[in-house]
Every structure is written in C-alpha cells, then in structure tokens.
C-alpha cells in the first residue's frame, strides 16, 4: 500500500505562502522536480474537463506563464479529492498547497464568482455556517438527542473529549441524525464529552481548500480563541472536512491538540462497543472512502472495521475503493458548484460514484463524511435504479444496532 503523504513537519507549508514565494520553499522545490508524468491529470475526476490540469499548471508555473492559467477556470473544477497528490511520484503537495493557491488567484480574477459558492462563503463569514442559519440555533439539535449532550460553557469543567459537531450535522435534519447517533455512541461508551454549542463556528475547510485566506483566517482565529477557553484532552469531530482543516492547516495557527475523527475514535473503542451491538441489521453494505479521511489521512480500514462489528452486515466493495476511491464531488467548494458544473456540461461525480455503488448490489451505501449524505441522496434521486439503496453514515448504522 502506498503510504499516505503525512505532514512530517508540524505544518505543510508556511502560513503566508503565496505563489510568488512558493518556489523558494521546500514545497516549491518539490514542484520543480515534477517529471510531467501526467498521473495527476489522469487520475483527476474532472481532468478531462480541464484545460490546465495539475501537470500543465506546473509546466506553466515553471515557465512563468501563470496568468494564462488564471484566465482559465480549470481550477474551479478541482474538488480537492487529493487523488493527484496521493499518486504523485514526486510527492508534490498539489492539493495541500499549489492547487488552492491557483484556485484563489483564479477566483480573484474571475469576472464573477459562481453565485452559489459566493453565497455560501459569505454566509460562513457572517453566520459561521454556509447555510446562513442563525448561530444561536446551532445547538438546538441537542434538545432532540436521546441522551444528554453537555455544553462546555454550561458545565464549566474540563472534559476528556471536546466534540466539534460542525455545520451540516448541527443544522440539517439528516446531519442531525448523525449527531444524535454519535451522542448515543459516546454515551454508550461512557465517554466524558461535551460540545461547544452555539460558540462553535465552521472550521472552514472549504475556505482552506479554496485558499479563501481571509475567510479562513477569520474562522481559525475565532475557533482557536474559543478552544483556548476550555480544557480538554482531545478534540473529536465527525466532520471529515473539519478534521482535515484541524489536521492540515490549523497547526499553522497554533493548534496542537490531540485530534481524532469519530471513525478512528470509535474503532479504537470497537471491542467495548461490540457487546452492545446486539441488533442485527441484515443488510449488504458498501463503504465509500471519504477523501479527507482515507486518501488524505490514511484511515481506510477503520470504517470497514466498524461495519464488520455490526451483526448482520455483509460488506461488499466498489470497483474504486480505498486510495483509489472516487470523490463525491463535494470538496474544495464543490458542494456549492453543482449548478456551475452543470452549466459547463460536466457530469456529477456523486452520480458517477452512485453508479459504482449500485453495481455492487448493496442495500446501503455507508459513508463517514456528513457532506456525502446530501451528495449521494441527491444522486440517488436523479439516477434511476431498480433496487432501493439507502445512504447511511457508519455512526448511524452503529447506533441503529446499539441496544440501549
């Protein structure tokens, strides 16, 4: 198995890195070693729709012809799926550094920003969530939780686990299913946890991956200040994008807490959990590797381990799995670019992926990233299919099997 590219250093690049300064840094020197093999372009899910796939961007960068690249909207089509970076034989940190920098420049020069994306980013700046919901309602879901969910500001004591809930899982009904499941699982395991409640704001991963640095820094500064207010041993989040931001970019802003995503976190506790998983689900499940959790962080087997722990689950694999998984298309702002992509005549990646899922004959498409519920449930609506298929987060399936 190819090793996941891990940041050996605390940070992947300098906080103030720009395209001008990039080539002077170790990351930039890697770019200079590019052998133009084209595997980035070949593996890119939207590679065929780009005038300037990563390989050509590097060529142009080395020749000083970037202006031409910025004029193209190629980079707007990057969904930050990390496939190019993972396979790059020169270990160039394309998705971490180079591509977001290009995307930022492209957006700055674009005559107009895709409206949907602009709205989301503005909402995030104004309300701390892309949907534009009131920040005072962020913790409202807690009242619907079957088990108590302590809020740090209220309990006023240190906790073991600070659970960073994130936007989709706080506001949207299907996301709240995920949150309620996590709460039940934490409760069942006797985890000492609490959430930030209304104090929490979006971690800003999409801001990061679009290198919307102003927005991203506003969010990091805010969240870091809130985190510093409390004492906790580790930060756990079920949102793979929040996890990604905390893991990759927040260390540049002083974040050095223990960090875990719920999937590996629960996998660590799977032996404790197993005796409680009594209810057989009797379904065939196929598991979709989320980009930020799988390719970017190397957690391929954890989600599958959890699924295997559930009685009555038969696991089947899609053609593209693990490091070769196909992206749902939601990352890097892709969540809010569906209309734009459609205007450009591009197919939806979520539909491409659903076709593979349907081909397995599974009843359930299991996921571990809150974006994917919407991506795949929408795709299922538009794609005709004979057998019914449900999209469920791994935590939802675990909670379903949990005897209380």
């Amino acid at each position, binding site marked *: 198995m190819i090793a996941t590219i891990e940041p050996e250093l605390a940070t992947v690049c300098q906080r103030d890195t720009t395209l001008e300064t990039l080539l002077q840094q170790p990351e930039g020197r890697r770019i200079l070693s590019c052998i*133009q093999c084209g595997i980035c372009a*070949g593996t890119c899910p939207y*590679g065929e729709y780009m005038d300037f796939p990563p390989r050509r961007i590097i060529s142009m960068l080395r020749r000083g012809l970037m202006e031409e690249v910025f004029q193209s909207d190629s980079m707007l089509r990057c969904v930050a799926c990390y496939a190019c970076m993972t*396979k790059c034989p020169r*270990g160039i940190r394309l998705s971490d550094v180079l591509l977001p920098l290009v995307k930022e420049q492209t957006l700055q020069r674009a005559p107009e920003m895709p409206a949907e994306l602009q709205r989301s980013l503005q909402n995030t700046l104004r309300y701390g969530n892309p949907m534009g919901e009131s920040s005072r309602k962020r913790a409202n879901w807690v009242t619907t939780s079957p088990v108590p969910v302590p809020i740090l500001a209220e309990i006023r004591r240190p906790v073991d686990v600070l659970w960073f809930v994130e936007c989709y899982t706080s506001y949207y009904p299907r996301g709240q299913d995920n949150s309620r499941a996590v709460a039940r699982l934490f409760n069942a395991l006797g985890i000492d946890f609490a959430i930030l409640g209304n104090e929490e704001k979006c971690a800003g991963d999409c801001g990061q991956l679009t290198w919307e640095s102003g927005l991203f820094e506003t969010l990091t500064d805010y969240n870091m200040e809130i985190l510093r207010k409390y004492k906790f041993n580790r930060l756990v989040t079920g949102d793979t994008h929040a996890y990604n931001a905390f893991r990759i970019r927040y260390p540049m802003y002083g974040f050095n807490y223990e960090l875990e995503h719920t999937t590996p976190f629960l996998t660590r506790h799977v032996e404790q959990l197993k005796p409680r998983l009594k209810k057989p689900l009797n379904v065939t499940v196929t598991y979709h590797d989320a980009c930020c959790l799988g390719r970017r962080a190397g957690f391929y087997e954890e989600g599958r381990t959890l699924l295997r722990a559930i009685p009555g689950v038969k696991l089947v694999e899609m053609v593209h799995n693990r490091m*070769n998984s196909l992206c749902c298309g939601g990352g890097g702002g892709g969540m809010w670019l569906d209309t734009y992509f459609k205007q450009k005549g591009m197919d939806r990646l979520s539909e491409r992926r659903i076709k593979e899922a349907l081909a397995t004959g599974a009843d359930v498409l299991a996921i571990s990233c809150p974006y994917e519920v919407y991506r795949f449930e929408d795709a299922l609506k538009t794609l005709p299919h004979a057998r019914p298929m449900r999209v469920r987060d791994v935590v939802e399936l675990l909670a379903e099997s949990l005897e209380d």
Partner: protein
Amino acid sequence: MRTPRPDQVRIGFYICHCGTNIAGALDVGEVVNHVAGLPGVALARDYKYLCSDPGQELIQHDIRDHGLNRIVVAACSPLMHERTFRRAVEEAGLNPFYCHMVNIREHDAWVHTDRQEATAKAKALATGAVRRVALHKPLETKKVPIHGEVLVVGGGIAGIHAALILADAGKRVYLVEREPTIGGHMARFDKTFPTLDCAACILTPKMSAVGAHPNITLWTYSEVTQVEGYVGNFNVTVTRKPRYVIEDACTGCLQCIEACIYHDARFPDEFNLGLGKRKPIHLPFPQATPPVVLIDPGTCIEFKTGKCKKTCVEACADRRAIDFQQREETRQIQVGTIIIATGFQTFDPRRIPYYGYGVFPTVYTALEVERLLNAAGPTGGEVILRNGKPPQRVGIVHCVGSRDENTNRYCSRVCCLYSLKLAHLIKEHTGAEVYNFYIDIRTPGKGMEEFYNRVAEEGMHLVRGKVADVYPDPADPANGRLMLQVEDTLMGRILKVPVDMLVLSVGLEPRADTQEVRRKFNLCCGPEGFFLERHPKLAPVSSYAEGVFLAGCCQGPKDIPDTVAQAGAAAAQALALIVRGYTEQEPNTAYVREEDCSGCKSCIPLCPYTAISLAADKQKAFINEALCKGCGVCVAACPSGSIGQNLFEDEQLLSEVEGVLTYA
C-alpha cells in the same frame, strides 16, 4: 629506521596548492608563516603539487638535509594520498607513521567561500596536526597471508560468471546458491535485449560448466549462515537445506517424478511464479543445475501423513537417492576472498493498489510474461490469458515501483528496454495491439537506441504518460477487459484505453533479506538499499569490507552485459589479492593495556570483527591484532580507559584538539 626521541622532534610542514584548488581559496603563504613559528617545527613550505614526483622528492630531500623526523602534509583527503606521502617518507628512511595529513581541500578549500576564514581554518587544522604528529610513534605494517579459496554467494549470471573465471584460473571456488538450482533471474527470461538471443541458449552452457568444473564446489539449496575472520582468512559456515534427495546418488533421470503418487502436477510451481504446476517431487526446470530433484515436504504425502506408498522410492530403485530422513547440514570452509552476487527481487506491484495486481486476473508482472513467452514455460511459449484466450490489446505500464517517492526513487534501468522487448515479443506471438505507457524512454548502452527504433517501427503504441487508473471496462466487464485511464502528456489529452492484458514493468529492488546479508558480511548499503561499492567510479566492485567484492544487481540495477562485466571485474580483483598472497594490515589497531584492564568484559560483545576475547587465565581482555580493523568502538566503550589505539592515542587526539582550539 630512525626513531627520534620525542624531545628532538623536528617537524617538516608542507602545504599543497593543489593548483588553485587550495591556493585559490586560502592564503597558503600565511599558513606557512603561521606554522613556521610553532614549537617543534623545523621547516615549513608550500608547493604547487606535492603529490607529484618533484613534490615528494622535495620532502625526501628535506628529511635528509634538515634532519626532519616528523612530516605534516596539508593537502587533500588522506583517502586520496595518505599512502603516497607515507611511502615517500618511508623511502627517505622515516617510519611512515611519522607522516600525518591534514585535509584542507575537501574540509576547507572546497567548502568555504570566505578566504580569510578558510585561511584561519587551515591554520587551526595545521596547528592541531603539528601538535599531534609530535606524539606519533613508529608503527609497523603487518603482512597477513591470504587463503587461495574464493566464496561466491549467489548463483545467478553474476555468480556463475565470476566462479567460472576464478575456477578457470585454477582457484578453488565455493558457489553457494539459496535456490535448488543456479541460474537466477536470467534462467526465467525468454529472450534478452537488445539482440533477442535466447536467454537459455547463452546461459545453460555456463550453468553446466559450473556443475562440471573440477575447481567449483557447487552448493545449491544452501545459505551462508555465518562469516567470521577477515580478508585472507574468512571462516564461513554454510547451511545446506535438506532436499530429501541425495545429490550424489541422483542421476537426474526424473523417473521418480513420473512415478509420484500424484498423477497430475497440482501445486503452484515456484520457478514459474505460480503460473504453472508441479508435483511434490520435482526439478525446478529442465536445465536445472545440478540436475537433482527435490521434495517439497509441505506438499509431499509421505511428509504430511507418513502413509505414502512411496512410488518415487520404488522408481529410484537401487540408485537409492531418495532419503526422507535427510537433515539440514552445515559445512565449514576457509576462504580468502568473497564475491557477493546475491541479485535482486522484482518490485511487488501490490504496493501500488490502483494497478489492480492481484485483484484483476488480467494484470501480470513483466517477469510472469517472461514465463508465458518462454517455450519451457507453463504455456509452452503461448501468450494466453488465465481464461485461455490470447489478448488482442495489451498495455504495458513502465516505471512500476520506480522513479516514485512513494515506492523506490531510483530508475531501475532495465525496464524501458525489457518493456520494449516484451512489446515486441507479445506482438510477435499474438499479433496484439500493444500500448507502452512510459514517462521517459531511457536507452543507454550499445545497441539499445537502435532496438528502441526497431520496436517503434514495428508499430508499437508509445504513449507518454503514467497510467493513473485501472478499472474494469464498463462496456465489457464480463471478459475481464480493463480500462486504462492516462493523460497522453504529449497531446495533453486524457485517454481511456481498453486492454485485455495489462503488463506491469516492475522495477528492481534490493532483496528483502539485504540487511541480514549486509550484517553477515559487514557490508554497507546505499540509501536505496543496494550494497554500496567503495567508490562509485574508482572502486565499483569493492565493498567496504576488505576482501569482499560485489557483482551484479545486488550492487544496483543493471542489465546482463553490465552484470557479466562487473562479475568479471570482481573475479579479477579477488584473483589479484590471491595472487599477491598477502594483505597489509593497517597498524592503527586497538590494544589492551593489560595491567589496567579490570576484566569487565564490556568491550567483548561490541567488536564488529569479533577480535576481542577474554584471556581465561588472566581474566583480562585480549585483542587479536589480525582481526582488529581499528574502528575504535572498544576504545570508546572501555569504561576504565584501558584500551588504546595506535595512531589514535588519547594524548595524540587531545593534543590535536587543543592545537585546533588554541588557534580557533
């Protein structure tokens, strides 16, 4: 030889310009003036090229005319010219170890840009050397005789070639091979590039020559388990695995195989990489050398149940070659030199999961395709897929596991050409459309570019781009047809190429047990894991272990011509040592000051050359001078400071340090 009293120290100091190498970077004259004023220095000079004959003569004249008894030469690395100056000094009648070199080229002139600072550094280093050399003692170089026998480890083409050269020169050679037969990777190939000779045709005569040579003791199915001793006197233990067939009794008639209780061959055949089948009792391949069968106890009924009818024993009749009781044996040999020719392994493409090796049955490694192409292979030379059909479209992916930070960074050097060869052979055998996906085509070497041209002209598809994704062709998933997704980087277009067969041109890697072998023979490994030669240009077959030479791919990926050339060079070097008959033992050995030793035994396990033992009668450590390489591990570790080392005495080192510091 003169051995002056320490109070009569007269030091001669010489600084070399080395053209402009040194003189261009620092002020040579200033260094001379500085050193001339140091206590004990009788004379200080600079000279343009000290290593030249006139340079050496200058020193020799000064020794005679000025009564010099210590010489310091500030010049290049001692690796380069220490011998030169020691010999010059010796010829002038001085003990050669009264001469000491200061490296002001590599350590100073070449690494500094500030002239003043570089001059200051040279002065400091020279001051240290002057202080040190005053304390030098006369030492004797010892001559140690060399055994005439040679051990060759590994029976691939490199080992075979080296063994034959030495044996033909009349030297006794022990050739130790881990597999049941010699031949190595080359025995598995069909044709060889660029000439497309049949590999078997050129290899098997050499194999039989080895088997028949009176000067070669061939031990296959055997491993070197221990090496002790030093150049000229290695004590080697070889373990011979049981093949359950008595080698001397077996005539290679193969009647036992015929008679085996298993009517059909049904077990995966190692030689054919599992593509073919064999019986529990088998011969790896028809030309195996020695032509002795062996029994695989993992699959043999007799070994598993003890209840076999033993039809093989019946068939063997009064030759009585089959022996189920055979045990592992060890052999002790003494050799003077060793040639390591342990070869390589091919990259395991499972490490790159997106190429689907082991998942899709139509994905093959290049070596597997060699077997398919080989007339003696599992398909009799037919390129047919596992479903029995010949492929119509074939993709060959270059650089699998090579030139990749995630796997191996280096270029495996042979893949481009063997890929072109396979493309040619596959097309020749099947008429299929063959696509070569490459990053760069590299064809150095005689006749290689011409071969590339020839293959290209045959109408091969050459696509510049690394295959990024492999998945079942959605249009034709049932027949195992695969879709390759790749950017044709010359066109700047994403291609989707359907193929029936995918060949992965896997790179060459150090063998998995390289580190074990390295420790056994005291070798060094380079960053990519291959054994390190002593000098990439000037000592390409010498290892860092004296008397141990490298041949073939264990030193780095190379093709057959280069491997054979290198094996010849290794044999020549081994022969040169043997013919000379002795080695010179550097006198910078460690010694125990017996009256100071507490017998604490701390040093004993640390010696990498097992030179230290405990003298039982005195309960004191004892260092065998002949085994000591002067590495200094024991000196550093001796907790009571009771071990000294010639040329590296505490007082010498501390005086040098003090000298450097006084100036710095």
